[in-house]
């Protein structure tokens, strides 16, 4: 089949076909500069402020699902076959305010108003998912939205009151769900899409096999999944990314297989898509997961991308290494599997050959006697990059520690295990002495950097104290908490 040469999407209430979409063209510029939809704002162009929040509907195994994303770092090409909903589409044609908008007006949720469209979109998504949210749910939903004027109090009040102004089932997107689903299905033609100028080409493979082939043909291509990092290469560093192979639309990379012993996920599974597995299988990740970025970024960013990117401060590698995760890499039809920790070779260097990509990640389920923890330290509690992150997994048999895996982020040039600290634990009885020894041993495992997130000294001290916290947490009672209030 001939590749298609244009991107087709539904924008609010109409279909648009855009030819020559370069790989690096952002949705935000498309909205503001080409479509003159100026309600969506640019606040930071790095996915951290939420002023550009829009809703994207996408078919996932045939079902239409809406999620908020940051238009500033979302590439237009990645929206092929999607429904993009902007603030302009919220109030009815008669100008009547949407329930979310009414609640925001009623509770004085805007002052300067610049962040407001983004907040309205985030609250819209929250209301559709959870019409009667708790304060905690509102705060989690708003981690990706900054307001500098209000101090948030009236926005929270508005969020809690939206339900009084309307029900999601009466909402336009609910009523039009069937039509929109059909519409989006009609846009899917199973063809590869190639668009954009030669030096900024965007390639959207038809399926995973086609992706494997495309990567063999263009081994130098930038692979773009959620674009939560690659987006910044463009908006912040003005780096060329063409040719870029977009894979966020590939259902074949979004598989989740749960067996009795392990869970295998496709590399394209986003943080949000992984979240439902946590309560049942990895409860120790509950708080940790909600502290990864903001909602918009969790909807876009993929676990495979977080790994493949190789950052020493990625949030998932330390906890996945501690759980002894494995990655499967694919090149053409050839696959190989290796322990995740071996994938990270050095700063900016991963064990990934030309034409190879991360296809799946296998995570063993915790065994009996295994105690897991995941901690993240950052300057600001939410939506901040870790200064130190750690995954800890300790197996105890008859009061003896028989296995210990401690993997840190932010302490070295790669996500890295603390071999000396682990050795200080294994073979010793579970107790304060062993963990004190492990904490002491960290000094020979790492010599962390100083930067704007934290000094070397602070990184080392907190790393040591997190091992102490792990020990204390098992013994702590209500009377002597070792963690801050929720």
């Amino acid at each position: 089949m001939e590749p298609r040469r244009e991107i087709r999407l539904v924008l609010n209430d109409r279909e648009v076909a855009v030819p020559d979409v370069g790989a690096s063209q952002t949705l935000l510029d498309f909205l503001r500069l080409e479509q003159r939809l100026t309600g969506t704002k640019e606040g930071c162009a790095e996915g951290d402020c939420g002023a550009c929040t829009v809703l994207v509907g996408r078919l996932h195994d045939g079902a239409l699902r809406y999620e908020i994303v940051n238009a500033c770092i979302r590439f237009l090409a990645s929206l092929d076959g999607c429904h993009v909903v902007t603030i302009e589409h919220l109030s009815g044609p008669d100008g009547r305010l949407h329930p979310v908008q009414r609640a925001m007006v009623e509770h004085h949720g805007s002052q300067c108003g610049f962040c407001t469209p983004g907040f309205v979109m985030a609250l819209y998504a929250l209301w559709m998912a959870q019409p009667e949210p708790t304060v905690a749910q509102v705060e989690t939903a708003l981690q990706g939205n900054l307001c500098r004027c209000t101090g948030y109090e009236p926005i929270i009040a508005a969020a809690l009151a939206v339900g009084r102004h309307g029900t999601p089932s009466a909402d336009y997107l609910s009523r039009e769900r069937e039509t929109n689903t059909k519409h989006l299905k009609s846009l899917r033609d199973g063809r590869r899409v190639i668009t954009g100028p030669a030096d900024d080409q965007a390639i959207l493979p038809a399926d995973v096999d086609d992706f494997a082939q495309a990567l063999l043909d263009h081994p130098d291509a930038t692979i773009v999944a959620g674009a939560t990092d690659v987006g910044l290469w463009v908006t912040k560093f003005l780096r060329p990314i063409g040719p870029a192979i977009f894979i966020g639309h590939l259902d074949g990379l979004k598989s989740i297989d749960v067996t009795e012993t392990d869970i295998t996920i496709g590399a394209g599974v986003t943080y949000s898509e992984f979240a439902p597995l946590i309560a049942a299988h990895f409860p120790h990740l509950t708080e940790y997961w909600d502290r990864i970025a903001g909602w918009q970024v969790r909807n876009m960013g993929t676990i495979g991308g977080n790994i493949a990117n190789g950052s020493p401060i990625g949030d998932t590698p330390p906890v996945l290494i501690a759980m002894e995760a494995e990655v499967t890499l694919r090149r053409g039809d050839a696959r190989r599997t290796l322990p995740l920790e071996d994938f990270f070779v050095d700063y900016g260097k991963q064990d990934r050959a030309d034409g190879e990509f991360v296809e799946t990640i296998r995570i063993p389920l915790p065994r009996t006697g295994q105690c897991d923890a995941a901690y993240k330290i950052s300057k600001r509690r939410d939506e901040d990059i870790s200064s130190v992150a750690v995954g800890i997994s300790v197996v105890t048999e008859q009061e003896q520690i028989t296995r210990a895996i401690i993997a840190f982020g932010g302490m070295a040039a790669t996500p890295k295990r603390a071999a000396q600290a682990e050795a200080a634990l294994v073979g010793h009885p579970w107790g304060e002495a062993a963990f004190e020894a492990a904490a002491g041993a960290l000094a020979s495992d790492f010599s962390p950097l100083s930067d704007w997130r934290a000094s070397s000294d602070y990184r080392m001290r907190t790393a040591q104290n997190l091992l102490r916290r792990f020990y204390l947490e098992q013994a702590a009672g209500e009377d002597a908490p070792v963690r801050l209030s929720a």
Partner: protein
Amino acid sequence: MKDQATIHGAVHTDLQHESAFKHVTGRATYTDDIAEPVGTLHAYLGVATETHARIRKIDLDPVRNAPGVIDVLTAEDIPGHNDISPTGRNDEPVFPTDKVEFNGQPLFAVIAETRDAARRAAERAKVDYDPLPHALDPVAAQEAGYPHITDPLTLSRGDASAALEKAKHRIGGRMVVGGQDHMYLEGHIAFAVPGEDDDVIVHCSTQHPSEAQHMVAHVLGVPSNAVTVNVRRMGGGFGGKESQMNLFCAVAAIAAKKWNRAVKIRPDRDQDMTATGKRHDFVIDYDVGFDDEGRIEAVDGQFAARCGYSSDLSGPVTDRALFHADNAYFYPHVRLESHPMKTNTVSNTAFRGFGGPQGVIAAERMVEEIAYALGKDTLDIRKANFYGEGRDVTPYHQTVEDNIMPRIVEELEASADYQSRREAVLAHNAKGGIIRRGIALTPVKFGISFTATWYNQAGALVHVYNDGSIHLNHGGTEMGQGLNTKVAQVVAETFQVDVDRIKITRTTTEKVPNTSATAASSGSDLNGMAALDAAEQIKARLVDFATERWQAEPEEVQFRPNRVQIRDEVISFDAFIKEAYMARVHLSAAGFYKTPKIHWDRATGKGRPFYYYAYGAACSEVEIDTLTGEYRVLRTDILHDVGRSLNPVLDKGQVEGAFIQGMGWLTTEELWWDDAGRLRTHAPSTYKIPLASDRPREFNVNLADWSENREMTIKRSKAVGEPPFMLGISVFEALSMAVASVADYRECPRLDAPATPERVLMAVERLKAGRAA
């Protein structure tokens, strides 16, 4: 005619922001949303990559040859003066010609067909530098013998040195207080459209349209009457757009005139944060003498500030730090000196509080020192030192006449249940666990008026059209604070018409000239009074008209809600206005106001710089994790004084927002320069302002509804923009108490700001080590 008891939007009532509907629908137009004329060009700044260096040579050919580029704008293209110093000190070039003075300093502007092309081309300049040694902070600057960037100030009363010598207790220390980025959600932007002759119109996001107008005229070398500056609204300002927009307005206007095309300039967030000024960082050396009761006898305070490479507003900012170094406390003997240091950093500027917060936090640090030294509750020390009978003269010799601090604190202490909660905190900490708690109740007293006395003036323009609709303009700018809403309420109240009848359009230098910055919390005080004056003038003409037309006495003409009653006859406002128009009554007026009573002699350090004071207090409780330094604000209670509020719900919004912003300044917002002089926290990914989840877990905010301004301010209200910012200090002090618990409160933790988790942990470790030693 429908009988109506009250108008919609009267003063002292809650009314939503005039743009609320537009905000939530995305239809509010900001500068970047204005439709661009065909042929609009885009400018982008090329910046220095050295921190302090002579410029040997700049090769701009690679920039000019880049795709989409029209040309490059340099200092040579400036037809008038290459200077945008807001105080006329001639020390702030649009583009420097020989020397780079901070990393990220704009050197030129690329003019291109698209913003993207301009931005990409800007990186292609080849600059040959001759590096010089640099000093980044005020201490390094003092050590390197750097000059004061502007004249320092001394405030003194009594004999501080002698009294310190004599005092029974004396403690000296140093406190380092970080700066703060404004992080307004809408960054800087200017959009210039050339006109005929010398004319140019600049749409931009400035708090100070008149200054932008004068600066554009100055750089173009044309009279001010050729330049029009328009501001419909800003996406936040906080002081960051008081003087800092001048650069962008100048570049856009020069380019627009040079190429005779509309030109827009909008830096990206990183450039906005590196190339424009911030709150001043301070290093404060204090020396306080006190008695056994903790009563202060003498204070010596040395306030060194990181001003950056040019003076900008550093003079008045560092002055205001001294004006607030007493906070709410009487210092019998005092000497306060400012040291506004030149540094090789971006030129620091106005930011909500304007130096005041840095003064207030120094006072609160001294309170802490005294409390820990004497083993007392900090609140007791505060109460012992409040201004009061016979103890009512400030270090600048103004008498505090309106002191309501004791009542505010007393009420908050009760409503926040301070005493029993403090007991509970002490009991919790006595158990010696990992999680420690702290609680603090801190006051704020803030002086209202520009200390540059001539700034305390304002104008307004009111038109009543012959259909009864009203058009209102004033010199203030709307940045989210609800100024337009409040001023419209004042006019509505005056005419007794629903506020919906009043349209406020953009602020423009064409309608109200020679305005002051919307700053110093003065917006409603000044512009509300000016609008009232205009409305009263028209109203007086209407009354004259009515007395003549109906042969009535003036007191027989009554403005009722949306109608006018003349003796027994009641007619609608619309009909009344129509009749007045037909009778050729002048239905337009320019209003004016200047603040009375104030005067200030900087040379002697004496006067009455402030018309009145605004008061408030906050009580915050926190917990800290002594393993990691992480913390949580459990509860905050606020009682704040806004006099008789013009609009209580908007004022409450200001108080809440200011508190959170103040908390951010003292907790997670950290400006971090590397040794090379590069600011490395320059976007929200690295610079962390509070999120919704950082709010206190319980947040009780109240206005002191009994308060009424004793001065004749607009409807007896008080200014609200800045004073509550300093309520955030309660969080900082509570963190300090939690830290102090690890050494049984015997040592003042001497936390520096911002108290990041790292600083909290390091203080915990320091105190633990001290206790062990």
